[in-house]
């Protein structure tokens, strides 16, 4: 091949690169290893993760949950046509991915109760940022009012990106686990953002927030759990203009936090401001149904600095996985999972509250996750549980730092506990027994 180019060394291909800055010695990296040798190195990383599911029973949540993912979903979503395709730029040979995304959009639309959903964003946190940008664009305002019930990491991400967009982020403190709107100034708000359930697990009546958004002419953004609509009202039912969510519970492994799946749905009114890709139905030249990415004029590759968002690569494979997982669940399974989570969470909640020194953080209803105040530092207690094979939840301190507007008083002794449909009564009882021993 070199001869065909009239060259006699590979180096000649790079001759036009200024020699002064070219690498003389090659990269400062170890030599390559064979795949089985690298596998041995990775087996050590893997072994060093004491927190893996086969070793600890998982009660950690905060947006990442241990749900059932059946073999059939893994098998289908790992078919190499889904895995090794690019963004469907040539619809004639990409109907597989396009149709799967179309189905995903439909499902997200239904579980959010909103008519438009995009083809995915990075994760819940960055989806929230896109919602804020949409609100700012829609209202030409800069102030975004965010409930402290929104996941602390999401709030942190919003604050980071606000440095670029110039948004003023106002965080609403809590009283008894619900938003205390009166303590912040909401005039001129582009968005009123709430979480449902909030990150502490609590379900708040959203009517007040919706009314507030209406009165301020702001977009009403609901950060939601994609499994909640199995039994709860949808964001759309509560009057949301935008729904954003973390889609991990829809068939994706815990994955140490990524790749996860950013969900985004909104009203028809906002469609021209939609971030990311959207797939639409159309026909081919023989008038047969076909799918294609559409409304492309919003996107960065066409609109450049005026694009609604800079997102390009998204999380399509997770979106396809979510569609398959929701197909596996169906109407019935979707409701069943949410129901079982609620039943397990309430069972454990009641058992733990019966332990001396353990108190509730809020008196509000919850779905599958709840916060408790312990008589000692939560991280220390959690440490003690590990010995009994339990990953007992996450401390609010580890998520939100020492103080957080979502909690009156210290965060250090508050633990957040999630119960999924995979947790058995034996496991829940074991937790309660061990905790009561640990605390006594």
């Amino acid at each position, binding site marked *: 091949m070199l001869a065909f180019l009239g060259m006699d060394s590979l180096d000649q*291909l790079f001759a036009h*690169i200024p020699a002064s*800055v*070219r*690498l003389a010695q090659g990269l400062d990296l170890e030599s*390559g290893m064979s*795949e089985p040798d690298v596998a041995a190195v990775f*087996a050590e990383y893997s072994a060093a993760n004491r*927190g893996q599911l*086969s070793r600890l029973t998982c009660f*950690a949540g905060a947006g*990442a949950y241990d749900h059932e993912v059946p073999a*059939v979903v893994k098998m289908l979503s*790992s078919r190499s046509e889904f895995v090794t395709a*690019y963004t469907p730029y*040539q619809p*004639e040979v990409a109907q597989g*991915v396009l*149709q799967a995304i179309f*189905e995903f959009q*439909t499902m997200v*639309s*239904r579980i959010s109760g909103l008519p438009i959903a995009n083809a995915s964003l*990075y994760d819940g946190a*960055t989806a929230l940022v896109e919602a804020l940008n949409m609100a700012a664009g829609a209202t030409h305002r800069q102030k975004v009012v965010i409930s402290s019930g929104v996941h602390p990491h999401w709030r942190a991400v919003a604050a980071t990106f606000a*440095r*670029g967009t110039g948004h003023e982020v106002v965080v609403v403190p809590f009283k008894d686990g619900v938003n205390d709107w009166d303590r912040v100034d909401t005039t001129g708000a582009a968005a009123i953002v709430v979480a449902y359930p909030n990150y502490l697990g609590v379900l708040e009546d959203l009517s007040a927030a919706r009314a507030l958004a209406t009165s301020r002419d702001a977009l009403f953004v609901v950060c939601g759990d994609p499994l909640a609509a199995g039994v709860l009202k*949808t964001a759309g039912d509560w009057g949301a203009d935008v729904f954003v969510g973390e889609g991990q519970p829809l068939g994706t492994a*815990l*994955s*140490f*936090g*990524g*790749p996860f799946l950013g969900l985004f749905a909104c009203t028809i009114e906002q469609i021209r401001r939609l971030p990311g890709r959207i797939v*639409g139905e*159309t026909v081919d030249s023989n008038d047969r149904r076909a799918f*294609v990415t*559409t409304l492309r*004029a919003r996107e960065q590759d066409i*609109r*450049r*600095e*005026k694009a609604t968002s*800079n997102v390009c*690569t998204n*999380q*399509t*494979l997770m979106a396809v996985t979510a569609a*398959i997982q*929701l*197909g596996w669940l*169906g*109407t019935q399974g*979707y*409701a069943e*999972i949410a129901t079982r989570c*609620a039943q397990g969470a309430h069972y454990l909640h009641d058992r733990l509250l019966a332990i001396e020194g353990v108190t509730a953080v809020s008196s509000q209803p919850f779905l599958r996750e709840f916060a408790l105040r312990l008589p000692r530092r939560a991280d220390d207690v959690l440490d003690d549980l590990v010995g009994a094979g339990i990953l007992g939840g996450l401390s609010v301190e*580890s998520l939100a730092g020492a103080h957080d507007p979502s909690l009156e008083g210290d965060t250090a002794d508050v633990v957040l506990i999630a119960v999924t*449909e995979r947790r*058995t009564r034996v496991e829940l009882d074991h937790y309660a027994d061990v905790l009561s021993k640990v605390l006594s």
Partner: protein
Amino acid sequence: MSSPGGRAASAPLLGHEIEPTVFELSVPGRSAFQLRTTGVPATPLRDLILARHLAAAPVALAEVSERDLVGHYTRLTHRQFSVDLGAYPLGSCTMKYNPKFCDAVAADPGLNSVHPGAPASLSQGWLELLVTLESKLCAITGMAAATLQPAAGAAGELTGLLLMRAYHEANGDVRRRVLIPDSAHGTNPASVTLGGYEVTTIPSNDRGLVDLAALKAALGPDVAGIMLTNPNTLGLFEEEIVEIAAAVHEVGGLLYYDGANLNAILGVIRPGDMGFDIVHMNLHKTFATPHGGGGPGAGPVAVSPRLVDFLPGPRATRATQGDYVWSTPARSIGRVHGWHGNAMVLARALAYIDVHGGEGLTRVAQHAVLNANWLRERLRATLPAAYDRVCMHECVLTATGIKDEFGVRGLDVAKGLLEEGFHSPTVYFPLIVDEALMFEPTETESLQTLESLAASLERLAERARRDPDGLHRAPQTTPVSRVDEARAARHLIATEDAAQR
């Protein structure tokens, strides 16, 4: 157009039959799910949750058996092209073959079943992996430290711009503008806007490179920095990079390297050595993550020493006692991801780097560049290069000749290539080239495949002469024929429910 509800289609003829949607396959009452028997008391929901929160009616999803679910999605895969099926020379996208070994690594439950919120003491393996990856990415780019949080290239860009902003602000410096060449990828200007800067576009010169004079003219004390990809999106190396770097640094600006094209320079030249301050990498292009139909990716950002303190946090670091901890840099811009970034993608990248080592990565770049140049040279008479000289990992060819002579556009050639069994190149990008066809063969395609690709393109050029109308209508032998994109936008049907209305 939709099939009646519940019609379970026959199998498509291996890809050539329209597949009903999963909702059309749905039959009330069917389901596939199976859950653990937990023994948890089945307390009625109304006793647990206030009625005003409960849904009035269940959300309707598709109701299908496992058998129908499998049939449906398997048939969809027979309507989908992919790298595993054939060459995918889509320029700017680096659609190379990714070793299955790296996928297997990411499937290890010891990695993928770890909760991201688990304390560091329970995830030491992960932290070590992240620290190791960070240091290797720094060695590759010639930078001091990196954040692994950004979930894709564009997220990396925005992170980089926020670092730029934080740096200037820390210096009490208010700057307004970021320079971008006109050939840049669309994410660059979009990210600049989100970073709170204005875009100043720098024209290319007649060699397809940044016009140094124009660049210098645009520089000033209000310039926060410049974003460059090098090789640029024409596949050409910015030969005056040293001069560019000096000029930008002189006015106090920073240099941002869009590392989506890293495949071209691995082990040959490092962004740090060229003078760049900030580099994002597209691990999903260069380091063994298949594209997944559009994602996920990972876009780590590496920086020069003066920016390290601003990096997002928390970062995995090695504590003196030898174990690994999370720590947040002193003047961190904060989090840019809900957790630690796309961890499974990061794991794949480290596995890929470990398998290749320094020499292996250098070979990747050498062969990527060799293949692109071979193709460019081979097609000289058929589809000439927009800029006729040695290119890097991709080459931008132009179909103006064919268009002027036979009225066959670049798009028609691209669609015709689908009938030949290859994926199309990128078309009409970069915007500055007329009838651009951007080919990136990558190092993983063999000479035989390139020869076959070239032969197909020659056949298409011949067909442009003989049967231009046929090419206007191409493709016809694909699962669907040419798709009406305008109609989709005009009459938006983005969900099954909209389709029903």
